[in-house]
């Protein structure tokens, strides 16, 4: 066909041949540019409907303008020949570049980010590649990855997907199966429909291959390859592949689509996070000049032993670590750590045999997530802030409000809620963090408004019964829920009154101060609003008012009893103008009947001129029976109760303003965790004076 003209394209040279057709270099005589032109062979297993579908998808793909996608200029038909005109991409295929030993991790990350970005654009427009593989990715001379054949891969013949440039493959024809089969997701092999997540699987295979030069699932026959894809775990990739990159690949290669990344944008963000970390760790003077850990010699440390109970106390001027035994009557104090810096979030991670304390520190010099594996004697001091917004967001981290451990079956997962309101997650124990784009890109986000403390995502609740379900609370944005592992989020604020907007029951914008749920009843949530106490019995579908007989329904705290799902604790304050204990009496309130009534718990707490405030995270419960509770106040006092709130004693005073209290038990000498106390039978209701008729302080409505 050389020299012939198809439409207004003069064919110059043959540059490749596949089962479905021939690819030519051609010259566009109208626009005066070089193009690639694919002529689909007559009878290339395309029945008329397949041909129509190919045309339709190619047209859809032609709308994809993206620097990492090979642009389709035109699809046409002449004399029964179907032809596709596309950008002429010159370079080397990623398959050829990765052969044998793979590429340097920096290159894998660079190309991976570009490929994920291309997939994100296509998926946003409803186009799935279906045949992503290293042979379909060309790296140009200037280092740009270009994904070819978007939307052109079709299901033809016996159910194998292929691109028009690829050799036609069937299950029976194993000699050419290796061209495509190794990239197929398990759900495709099971005969289920492929969706955009099958592309993310293929991306995992591409990254694995690019990093190692090997395919993750290999075999001598199609059957062996299929079997490996369905059942086997790929061989781990060690150095020089950074653990963060391996974690991303592993998540792409999760057998169940629901447990993979749900969006290509998430993979892109995760790879960018690894990229940032890698840049720092390979910096020329990184090791010589800047320690990753800070040793603290002049600070008094608590001498922690196995079996000890810890209180992690974050304040506006530093962190403290308190230690006690199971009696919880005397506390040894370590700290202050990070003196002068505000510590809004702390967490203890005892999973997988570790005892790591996590802490967020904020000062003029930025906000950092840091950790200690020796109970505060040394802390990481990362050169680069581990949690950072990607450059294209235009947003900078102000504070980290909450650190939450992932589910027990995912010991490397943690979440952070930050200000400005966003959720970050790590899947490699904090080596790399990525922004949860599904929430960040929510159309409501531009209309969230900061509360008094800033626009913060301050609470993260994981549903223990459903690993795809999670709740977050944003002040002032409201409650948001995901049921697909974080890809998409919905506002769940029906029934929560908003005092700061003309519409008193808006879809979102509520200033939620705290939410809580019990693992045994994950569908039931409790909520302390900026005015208003609420409960939901249906996974936050709607909320009912439970401010029955409390002195004020304003407050910050909502603490779940660790064993009794009908019991929560609150600490009411007088109003949003006067955010202090009502009438100068410091009272904790408890309900043991889901909010039908509340009882004050005051024994041992100051009841005169105690204009105290307990902030949202400044309270914690332990796991003993009876449950111990500890809270800190804005005036720097720390109170504890060893008996579920019946009696209280002051543990410490003179601290800076307390913003965070967390409880932990250190692994005991036998190597196991101190067992939680046996589960109490449903706690009998005590005969307490009913307060349901007393007046609840509320704003005029």
């Amino acid at each position, binding site marked *: 066909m050389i020299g012939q003209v198809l439409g207004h394209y003069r064919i110059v040279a043959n540059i490749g041949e596949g089962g479905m057709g021939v690819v030519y270099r051609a010259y566009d005589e109208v626009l005066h540019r070089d193009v690639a032109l694919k002529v689909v062979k007559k009878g290339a297993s395309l029945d008329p409907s397949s041909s129509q579908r190919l045309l339709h998808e190619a047209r859809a793909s032609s709308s994809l303008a993206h620097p990492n996608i090979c642009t389709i200029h035109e699809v046409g038909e002449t004399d029964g020949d179907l032809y596709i005109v596309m950008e002429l991409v010159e370079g080397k295929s990623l398959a050829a570049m990765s052969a044998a030993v793979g590429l340097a991790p920096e290159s894998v990350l660079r190309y991976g980010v570009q490929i994920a970005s291309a997939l994100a654009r296509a998926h946003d427009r409803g186009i799935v590649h279906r045949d992503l593989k290293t042979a379909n990715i060309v790296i140009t001379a200037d280092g740009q990855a270009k994904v070819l054949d978007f939307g052109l891969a079709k299901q033809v013949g016996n159910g194998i997907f292929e691109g028009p440039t690829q050799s036609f493959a069937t299950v029976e024809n194993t000699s050419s199966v290796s061209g495509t089969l190794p990239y197929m997701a398990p759900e495709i092999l099971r005969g289920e429909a492929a969706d955009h997540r099958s592309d993310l699987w293929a991306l995992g295979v591409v990254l694995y291959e690019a990093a190692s030069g090997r395919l993750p699932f290999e075999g001598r026959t199609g059957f062996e390859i299929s079997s490996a894809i369905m059942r086997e775990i790929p061989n781990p990739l060690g150095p020089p592949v950074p653990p963060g990159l391996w974690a991303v690949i592993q998540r792409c290669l999760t057998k169940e689509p629901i447990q993979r990344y749900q969006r290509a944008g998430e993979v892109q963000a995760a790879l960018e996070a690894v990229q940032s970390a890698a840049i*720092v760790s390979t*910096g*020329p*003077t*990184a090791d*010589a*000049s*800047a*320690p990753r850990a*800070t040793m603290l010699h002049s600070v008094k440390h608590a001498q922690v032993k196995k079996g000890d109970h810890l209180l992690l106390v974050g304040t506006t001027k530093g962190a403290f670590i308190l230690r006690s035994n199971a009696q919880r009557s005397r506390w040894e104090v370590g700290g202050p750590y990070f003196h002068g810096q505000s510590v809004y979030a702390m967490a203890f991670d005892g999973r997988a045999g570790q005892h790591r304390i996590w802490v967020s520190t904020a000062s*003029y*010099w*930025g906000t950092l997530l840091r950790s200690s594996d020796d109970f505060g004697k040394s802390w990481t*001091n990362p*050169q*680069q*802030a581990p949690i*950072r*917004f990607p*450059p294209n967001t*235009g*947003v*900078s*981290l102000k504070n980290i409000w909450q650190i939450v451990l992932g589910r027990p079956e995912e010991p490397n997962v943690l979440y952070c809620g930050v200000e400005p309101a966003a959720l970050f997650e790590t899947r490699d124990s904090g080596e790399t963090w990525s922004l949860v784009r599904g929430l960040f890109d929510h159309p409501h986000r531009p209309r969230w408004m900061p509360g008094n403390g800033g626009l913060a995502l301050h609470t993260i609740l994981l549903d223990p019964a459903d690993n795809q379900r999670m709740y977050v609370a944003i002040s002032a944005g409201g409650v948001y829920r995901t049921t697909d592992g974080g890809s998409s989020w919905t506002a769940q604020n029906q029934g929560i009154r908003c005092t700061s907007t003309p519409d008193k029951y808006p879809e979102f914008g509520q200033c939620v101060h705290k939410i809580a749920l019990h693992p045994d009843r994950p569908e039931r949530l409790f909520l302390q609003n900026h005015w208003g106490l609420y409960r939901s019995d249906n996974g936050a579908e709607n909320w009912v008012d439970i401010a029955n007989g409390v002195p004020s329904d304003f407050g910050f705290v909502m603490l779940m009893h660790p064993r009794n799902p009908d019991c929560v604790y609150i600490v009411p304050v007088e109003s949003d103008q006067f955010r202090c204990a009502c009438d100068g009496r410091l009272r904790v309130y408890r309900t043991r009947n889901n909010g039908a009534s509340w009882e004050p718990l005051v024994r041992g707490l100051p009841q005169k001129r105690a204009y105290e405030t307990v902030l949202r995270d400044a309270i914690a419960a332990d796991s003993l029976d009876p449950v111990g509770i500890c809270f800190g106040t804005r005036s720097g006092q720390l109170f504890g109760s060893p008996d579920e709130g019946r009696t209280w004693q002051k543990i410490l005073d003179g601290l800076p303003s307390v913003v965070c209290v967390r409880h932990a038990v250190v692994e005991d000498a036998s190597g196991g965790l101190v067992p939680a106390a046996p589960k109490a039978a449903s706690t009998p209701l005590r005969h307490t004076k009913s307060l349901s008729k007393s007046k609840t302080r509320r704003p005029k409505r």
Partner: protein
Amino acid sequence: MPVTFHIPGVLREFTAGRSKVEIAQSPTTLADALSALWALYPGVRDRVITEQGQVREHINIFIGDEHVRYTGGLASPVSSGSEISIVPAVSGG
């Protein structure tokens, strides 16, 4: 003459203890000089600027005695012999 950075105590952990860092290249703007500083001591970067490349709100940078806020920000000119100070603001509670 090189450009010299004066490093506050809190950041010396990231400059191998140095209170002064000389930049051998000949930067012409503050942004160039800072880039050279990050290249030598990467840990300083995130303490001084945000992930979006803005100087942190409570961090002040002076070229000589001039606050760069009034001389063009990161585009402020620097020349051979310039002394650049990184200083936390006086504020807080």
